Every structure is written in C-alpha cells, then in structure tokens.
C-alpha cells in the first residue's frame, strides 16, 4: 500500500519535472534575444558568432539540443552558465541556501503572526477587536509582497534607516563556512555575529514576503477556530473549568490548524516564487536574484537549471505538506 503510493508519487514527480523541463527549454529558445551575440563585443563577425554557437551547441536543431541537455541532466551535468562560465549546478546550489533561509524565515514569521492574530480574533469574537483585525488583515492582503518590500525600503532604509536593506550579510564579516546556510551553520558553530547579521539582513525581505501570507492564515484560521469553538467538546471543556483562552489553545487550535495547513503549503510555494522580485529589491544574493540576471543576459543553461530546481523544490514542499497532514490527523495515521 505504502509502496504503491510512493511509486505513484515518484512517477508523477518524474513526469512533472520532465514537463517543466520541456516547457522551459522551448520557452527560453523561442523568446527573442540571442545569448551568443550578447556575449561578444559589438564588432564580432558572423564567423565568431557561429563558432561560439557551435561551442554551446546552439547550431543544432531544437530536439537535438534538448536530447543532449536532458542526457547531461540525467547524469548530473546541467551545463555551463554562458555569462558566469561555471557549472550551472554549482552556481545554483551555492545560491539555494540563501533563498531557502529567507523563505523559511518568512514562513515562520507568517505562521507565528497569522496564528497569533487568529487566536486573538477568535478569543474576542463578536467584539470590535475582531472586526478591527479582520479589516487590517484584509488591507494587508490587498498589497502584494514586492510592494511591501518597497514600502519597507522607504520606511526603514531611507526615512528611518535602522535596518540593512541590501545584501545578505555585512561584508566586513568574514565567513569561512562549509555550506552557504549562513544562519544554520552559524548557529551550529556558535558564530552569533554571522547569525545576527544574516537575520537582520533577512528581516525586511522576509517580512515583506510574510505579511500577505500571515493575513491569509489569520483569516482562514480564525474562521476555522470559530467553527471548532461551536463543537460540543469545547463546551465540555468550558464546563470542566477551562478558560476561553485555554479552550482555544488546547482544544480548538489543533483541529482548526489541519485545514489551514493545505493553504499554507500551497501559499508557501507562491511565497518562494515571490522571492524572485523581493530578493531583487533588497539585492539579496539568492536564487531569485540570480534568475533575473540570467533572464536579462539570456543565460539559457542557467535559466533552465534554476527553473528545474524551483520545480523540484515545489514538489518536495507539497510532499512535506501531505506528510505533515497525515502526521497531524490521527484518523489518517491509523487508516
């Protein structure tokens, strides 16, 4: 049973990734702009261009190019970046930790903030506080993440410059880590200066990414909480002497979180998508920023690598969401 579901899962994953590979491959090639011409100085001859095209394999037909590229990918060779002249997998993997850390921090902020607001709203249901919180989260939700990014740059970077608005870490700090997970490795190594600096650089972009999701969680979770709070077992808990707050936290929250989890999973992938622009705004050295450079420079192998990695990431996240859903729901666990 478990084996069968796992196999189906693996198969669909493979099919999805293949589909993504085909689509990206075709799209970046039909889009206007010749990457080779952009690499060479203005005076380059037709012959120079042709020679370089042959070097990168652009002289072959589209299906041929695809087969060659896919053959490489299957052996772990994602090609070489045209602009940066280094293996794509190496480049992409060196940037992934920055984006992951940023996304995880945004997710943690969104869940913590959203849950807190939902709990307060449910606790004060039927009062002006609830209405006020509803209105605020509606307003927050109507502003997309990159606009929040710009607002924060203006507020805390320009008008009241208290936070760093550019980069990933203070360039004065020397980092000789084995991985690029500055925050995690910094914590493990006890390099609190690194942790402190990366966190303070991440705070604003993470907050920009987190706010819309936090508002969404707040709205949905509060609605679920209010429904759960009408259930008989919460009434019984009140009769047994538990306060309204502990009824919410101990009896209602876990049941209300379950339906919220699916939303968080789907929205987390959107949040990661949002890093592309938000990283750009804050000059944060992550995958998204690299992706924009790659697109501007028509760096086809790099674009392909980044898109494939994002697709794989989304699949893994959906897998984790399904898994945690099963873990949190006793009915499914024993089913």
């Amino acid at each position, binding site marked *: 049973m478990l084996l069968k579901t796992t196999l189906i899962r693996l198969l669909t994953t493979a099919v999805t990734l293949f589909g993504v590979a085909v689509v990206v491959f075709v799209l970046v090639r039909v889009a206007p702009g010749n990457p080779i011409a952009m690499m060479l100085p203005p005076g380059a001859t037709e012959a120079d261009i042709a020679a370089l095209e042959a070097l990168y394999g652009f002289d072959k037909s589209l299906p041929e190019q695809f087969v060659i590229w896919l053959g490489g990918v299957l052996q772990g060779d994602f090609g070489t970046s045209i602009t940066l002249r280094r293996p794509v997998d190496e480049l992409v993997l060196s940037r992934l930790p920055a984006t992951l850390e940023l996304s995880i921090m945004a997710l943690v902020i969104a869940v913590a903030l959203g849950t807190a607001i939902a709990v307060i709203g449910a606790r004060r249901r039927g009062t002006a506080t609830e209405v006020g919180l509803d209105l605020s989260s509606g307003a927050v939700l109507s502003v997309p993440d990159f606009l929040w990014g710009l607002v924060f740059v203006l507020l805390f970077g320009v008008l009241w410059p208290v936070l760093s608005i550019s980069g990933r870490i203070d360039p004065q700090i020397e980092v000789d880590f084995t991985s690029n997970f500055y925050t995690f490795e910094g914590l493990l190594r006890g390099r609190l200066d690194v942790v402190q600096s990366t966190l303070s650089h991440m705070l604003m972009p993470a907050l920009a990414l987190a706010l819309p999701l936090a508002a969404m969680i707040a709205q949905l979770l509060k609605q679920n909480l209010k429904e759960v709070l009408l259930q008989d077992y919460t009434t*019984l808990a009140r*009769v*047994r*002497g538990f306060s309204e707050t502990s009824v919410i936290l101990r009896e209602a929250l876990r*049941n209300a979180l379950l339906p919220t989890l699916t939303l968080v999973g789907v929205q987390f992938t959107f949040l990661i998508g949002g890093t592309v622009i938000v990283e750009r705004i804050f000059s944060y050295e992550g995958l998204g920023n690299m992706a924009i450079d790659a697109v501007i420079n028509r760096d086809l192998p790099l674009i392909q690598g980044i898109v494939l990695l994002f697709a794989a990431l989304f699949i893994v996240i959906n897998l984790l969401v399904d898994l945690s859903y099963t873990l949190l729901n006793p*009915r499914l666990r024993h089913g």
Partner: protein
Amino acid sequence: MTGSQTHPNTLDVMQLNIALPNGHRLLRDVSLSLRPGEVRVLVGESGAGKSMIGKAVLGILPQNLKVTEGEILLEGQHLNAMTPWTRRKTVAQSAALIPQDPLTALNPARRIGPQITDPLVRIHGWSRTKARETALALLDRVHIRDPKRVMESYPHELSGGMRQRVLIAAAFAPSPRLIVADEPTTALDVTVQKQILRLIRELQQETATAVLFVTHDMGVVAKVSQQVTVLFAGKVMEDAPTERIFTDPRHPYTRALIAATPSYADLDRPFSPVPQALIAELQDDIVRDDARHQGGAR
C-alpha cells in the same frame, strides 16, 4: 446523606427567566430543586427549554441569551452574583455534564486518556498518578474492556456506546455533587440506550450524586428519577414525585404526555399525540402570562 447543614439542597433554581435581547422569554419563572443524591427529570417536547435550564446552571448559555430574573444556587452559592472566573471555578468544582452526542463531545485530535485526566490535574490540582488511576478505575467501572488501551486511543477508534461510557466516566471522575445529563442516550442505538441508562443510575446511586436528567421520553422518567418537572414553552407545568406523576397526573399536559408515550408492554394501545387543542390553550395562557409579566416589569 449529610450534605451542608445550612443549605441542604445541591441545586436550587428560583424563578429563573431567560430571554432573547428583544425581550422574548425562553424560560418563564422556572423553579426547581435537587437534594443531594436525588435524580430529577426534566421532561417536555422539543423546544420546551429543557437543555436551556441545564446550560444556565452550567454557565454555557449561548451568548445572545441572558438571565433576566431569578437565582441559581449551586450547593447554596449564588452563581449569578459571581464574577465569570469564580463562577467557572465553582461550577467546575461541583458540577459536570454528560452530553447528548458522544460523537462530537470528544476532541477528535486528542487521545482519550488526557481528555479525562487533564481537568483533574489542571483544574482540580490532582497528581498525574492519582488522575490516571482514577480514570482507569472508572473506565473499568463503566464496563470498558482494556481501559489502558482505551486511554491511548483516539475517539474515532471507539463506538458510540463506548464513547458515551468514556464521557460518563469523565463526568464522575472529579466526584461532582451535581451532574447534568442532557438526553445522554438519544444519539445511541436502542440496545445500548438501556445499558447506558442503567450505568448512569448505578454510578449515581453509588456516589450519591444529584442528577438533573433531561429527556423528552416519559418512558425514561419512570426508570431513573425520584422527581419530575414537566415543561412546556419554558414554563413548569407540573412538578411532582415520580411515583405520583404516573398514578395521579394533575396537569392536563402531563396526562397528554403520558398518553403520547408509546408503551412497549402494550403495543395495541393506540398512539395519541398531544392534542392540538390543548397546545393552543396552553399557548394562550403563555401569551397572557407574558403580557402580564411585561406590564409588571414596566
């Protein structure tokens, strides 16, 4: 039964009125009392206000309803005069609820064990060991096989009858002086109903706990109670000892309710619903009553 010397009753409800914000009354001057160890049945048709009385006592009325007049005394203490916090603690110390629907009264995300022991530890201040031992003993007492395994189970792993047994055990665990049982058998199979009814009766007698038992079934009344309150439209029609209510019912509505109860012993006896004419007459009374009450209030 010793009980409190100065105040012998476990529960006194005195001239209780509960109304909607627009002034419409759902309970009309309801009075009743329960001595320690006594079982009183609240009987009446759907919508008569039976559950409302239980909810008012336990402090779980819907937010839009208010107690407009009257007193509720739990072991002699005026509940209405208390702050919400004190009231909650007082009710939790001396009262418990056996709910109607065992399928929704247990938290689906939590194991059975903590759902019984949590209040004992966190509200009543017992040690974990004592709470666990009490829970195991009570689960055994309500005829649950393998109590240790059931403590580890989730509600969906138990049948409806088993869950109701669990809820009965949970209600009796902190040794309450009063238990409100709101139609505790209506959601169950007919075969299980009798067992559950007997179980509540037995435990009630062993522990001398007073029980306010809500039902719409006159058949249940004879089995469990010493006292009966017959309700119609939030108003007490008759309040009498059980043996008298069947031999000598005084109110026409009581007689109609008894006649409307199908008798399993005598299946040939024709079933006669409460006559419409009687209901209309009683409702006229209520309207006149309400008009007088409004006039008096102004």
